[in-house]
């Protein structure tokens, strides 16, 4: 059932397109050698080029170009071997050159497509219109002084990829799924760290509404939304606002809006009349960017495995359920962790433990895969202790809890706490004999047909063994002795 907003005049469909700004992972800026690390002292990472000093000239950073190409390939998109940088002219205090170097008419990456997956399992292809490289601006700080503004140029000149989607998204959920998938691909590729809190990834959300079957109506752009949740909220809030306007007989004006995250509404930033005339023209300081087809092929050959391919492999080669494969491939780090645990072991067993008790433990301790107190090697060792019957599943769960608390290796914990499972049939038989002697009446009941009592005997035996009896052996021997 497709998503609609119910209005007084019927159902409204929502049309969404996203422009995502992704900071390129690179050591240096797009056109200068200055560093790009997050969190440096203000103005500590600024070259004379970034500060727009007289006579300074931009020189393209090859690695940033490679990252854009890798991203294009990861988005199944056309790599344009000829592209061009243009100047986008406007005045602002944190834009030192008085223009942003961007790609307007001829972007480095053309049309592509990615597939999103929704909660109900449906899959949908979303078109990518283009990806282009551009410089970030600096940051204005208006809250440091009562009458003055401060400028931090650390971000000035940092390479961004603007990734524009087709207006193919039809619901807040789809917009969220698209951004999630895009972020996942970028992180797999290593071309953007996807860190939305630090501003490495932010989205401009284009929203319009229409009656089913209509052409597009006027859209509004909600600028600079910095979390997936806010994107979904902004879509909903903006769509409802537009529906109300249309239904009240008013007109939606094309404008740029901001999402107020505390009030959950969008508000106007500037109207179409106030829009800048950016006076784009080709940057005469930079010749056209011409890529060698062989170089693009090299980058393609060296591309890491992407989420879709990895998920398919987990289903096909490891026999995982599509759901487990999806969960394990969401984050590159999780997939790497899983593969390290599964290597040389039963892949399904590894998947069950990771998606089950291990994730639960991470959640409980507030940790993530990146700072997990348990290494993949230790989790693997725990699975080995199950496979060689040293631990029962139940004991293994206990050991895992101790691992979360102490960070110790499972072998050490088993030794320290004497948790080793008992597999000595003689020892088990002795315990069983004791249990049967103590409960002669129950033995008689069982033998007269009350088979339900079997569980009672298992429980008593395990209890007497402090849970260390091998469950399979306990079962077998009990059956034999009870007759």
């Amino acid at each position, binding site marked *: 059932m497709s998503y609609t907003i119910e209005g007084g005049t019927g159902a409204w469909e929502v049309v969404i397109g996203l422009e995502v700004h992704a900071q390129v992972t690179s050591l240096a800026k797009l056109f200068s050698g200055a560093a790009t690390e997050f969190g440096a002292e203000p103005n500590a990472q600024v070259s*004379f080029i970034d*500060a*727009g*000093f*007289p*006579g*300074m*000239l*931009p*020189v*393209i950073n090859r690695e940033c170009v490679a990252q854009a190409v890798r991203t294009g390939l990861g988005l199944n998109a056309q790599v344009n071997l000829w592209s061009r940088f243009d*100047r986008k*002219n406007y*005045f*602002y*205090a944190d834009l*030192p*050159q*008085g*223009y942003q170097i961007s790609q307007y008419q001829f972007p480095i990456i053309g049309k592509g497509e990615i597939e999103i997956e929704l909660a109900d399992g449906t899959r949908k292809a979303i078109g990518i219109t283009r990806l282009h490289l551009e410089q970030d601006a600096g940051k204005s700080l208006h809250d440091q002084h009562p009458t003055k*503004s401060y*400028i931090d140029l650390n971000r000035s000149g940092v390479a961004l990829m603007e990734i524009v989607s087709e207006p193919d998204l039809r619901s807040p959920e789809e917009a969220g799924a698209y951004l999630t998938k895009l972020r996942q691909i970028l992180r797999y590729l290593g071309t953007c760290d996807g860190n939305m809190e630090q501003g490495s990834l932010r989205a401009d959300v284009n929203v319009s509404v229409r009656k089913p079957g209509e052409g597009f109506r006027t859209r509004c752009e909600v600028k600079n939304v910095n979390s997936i949740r806010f994107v979904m909220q902004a879509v909903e809030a903006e769509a409802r606002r537009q529906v109300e306007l249309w239904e009240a007989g008013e007109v939606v004006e094309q404008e740029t809006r901001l999402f107020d995250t505390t009030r959950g509404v969008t508000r106007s930033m500037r109207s179409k009349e106030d829009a800048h*005339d950016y*006076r*784009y*023209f080709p940057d*005469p*300081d*930079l*010749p056209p960017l011409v890529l060698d087809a062989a170089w693009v092929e090299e980058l393609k050959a060296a591309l890491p495995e992407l989420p879709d391919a990895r998920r398919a492999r987990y289903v096909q080669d490891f026999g995982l359920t599509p759901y487990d494969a999806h969960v394990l491939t969401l984050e590159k780090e999780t997939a790497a962790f899983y593969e390290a645990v599964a290597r040389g072991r039963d892949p399904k067993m590894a998947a069950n433990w990771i998606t089950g008790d291990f994730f639960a433990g991470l959640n409980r301790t507030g940790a993530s895969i990146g700072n997990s107190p348990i290494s993949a090697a230790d989790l693997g060792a725990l699975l080995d202790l199950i496979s060689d019957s040293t631990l029962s599943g139940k004991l293994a769960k206990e050991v895992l809890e101790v691992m979360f608390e102490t960070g110790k290796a499972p072998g050490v914990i088993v030794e320290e706490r004497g948790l080793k499972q008992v597999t000595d049939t003689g020892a088990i038989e002795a315990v069983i004999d004791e249990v049967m002697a103590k409960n002669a009446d129950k033995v008689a009941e069982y033998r007269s047909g009350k088979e339900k009592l079997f569980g009672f005997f298992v429980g008593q035996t395990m209890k007497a063994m402090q849970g260390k009896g091998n469950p399979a052996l306990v079962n077998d021997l009990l059956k034999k002795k009870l007759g």
Partner: protein
Amino acid sequence: MTAPTDFTIAGARAALDARRISAVELTRAHLDAVEQLNPRLNAYITITPEVALAQAAAADAAIARGEAGPLSGIPLAIKDLFCTAGIRTTAASRILGDFVPPYESTVTTKLLQDGAVFLGKANLDEFAMGSSNLSSAFGGVENPWKRAGAPETVLVPGGSSGGSAAAVAARLALGATATDTGGSIRQPAAFCGVTGIKPTYGRCSRYGIIAYASSLDQAGPVARTVEDCAILLRSMSGFDPKDSTSANRAVPDFAAAVARGVKGLRIGIPREYRVEGLSPEIDALWQQGMDWLKAEGAELVEISLPHTRHALATYYIVAPAEASSNLARYDGVRFGLREDGKDLKDLYERSRAAGFGAEVKRRILVGTYVLSAGYYDAYYVKAQQVRALIKRDFDQAWEKVDAILTPATPTAAFGRDETQDDPVAMYLNDVFTITANLAGIPGMALPAGLDAQGLPLGLQILGRPFDEETLFAIGGAIERAADFKATPAVRAAA
């Protein structure tokens, strides 16, 4: 014995190497001349005697060690558009205030590496926009030449590199750096009776040169002989990874080409260059130039460059468009002049209103207009198309000829008070030179004679991209034939 200020660069090199003069003596002689004449000529905005003498002493030491570079001890004027580390750089504009760059331009770095001595920063039209040097915020430059019988009439030196050309003509430097966006080396060289070459676009790095119009700007030398220009250009040229438009090509020994001769060269004479308003004396000089080259064994070929008539209009769209963007960084925020305002926009408006002169404002306005939504296609895009046609004219010409001979300017230097109020009339000064910038090809101007009033007149040679050597060969031949010995009225005491 030659007065130190009358040396050619080649002659000074020989005298320095033979220890007939020291670099410090040569530099002092020039500093004395500057001190004496600059208050009148205003060829320098900033004079740096201490720096110059220290560089000269270092040059003497290098010569003594037998480690002299090609320019060791050669005193030069540096157009104040080149950023010089630790030395105020103004672009002849108020907007830069007392800006002292913490970095050195690539061209001046190369000159320093070759041992050159920098006397100071030469005056120019503000941001290199002009043909008279009258747009300088530091006042105009006086052309050291005088009309016969009119010593009181102040003539302009041309522009924008008017300070460079006047300094070299008046013996206030042995040579100078300059830049050329539409004729800014060649027109002042012609007005001041000296030689200048704008090399192929990309030959000299633009790193550290304050930008006017990036796709047209190119550095080059001004000197008193063709050979001296060749020596300077060799030091100034070369690939620079810091300039993405710099050409990765070997730099030839340009000076070796000066004596090569013109035998067998085909010289194109473009019929479209017989423009209206061309002075009959310049027309005659042009003919004289053809005769000289023919006599030396060159073949003259009439050619057509049909799109030349659109060159001025094209230039005055492309150059202001780029300038309007290049000059956006002068906003009063990070360096240079700031006029505080009630908010950011007010600060911009006040700073830029106070900092830029009338001609710069005019070009920023024109440039902003031609890039604006609704006008971009009609102006900027159309101009780029015409520019491509102008370049194609030349590409076709190179199938028939090896170089092209034209006048350098339509007139001799004009009086400071004779400049028209009409800026468009002023733009006509660049009618012969502007096509070389639009096509990116090299062009040289050199003095070839005097007009009836005793003012120098120049010829221009245009060549194939990266074939400056042919220009030097032809320039050398014209120089020998013209045997131009006249000197300006105002110059350092011989």
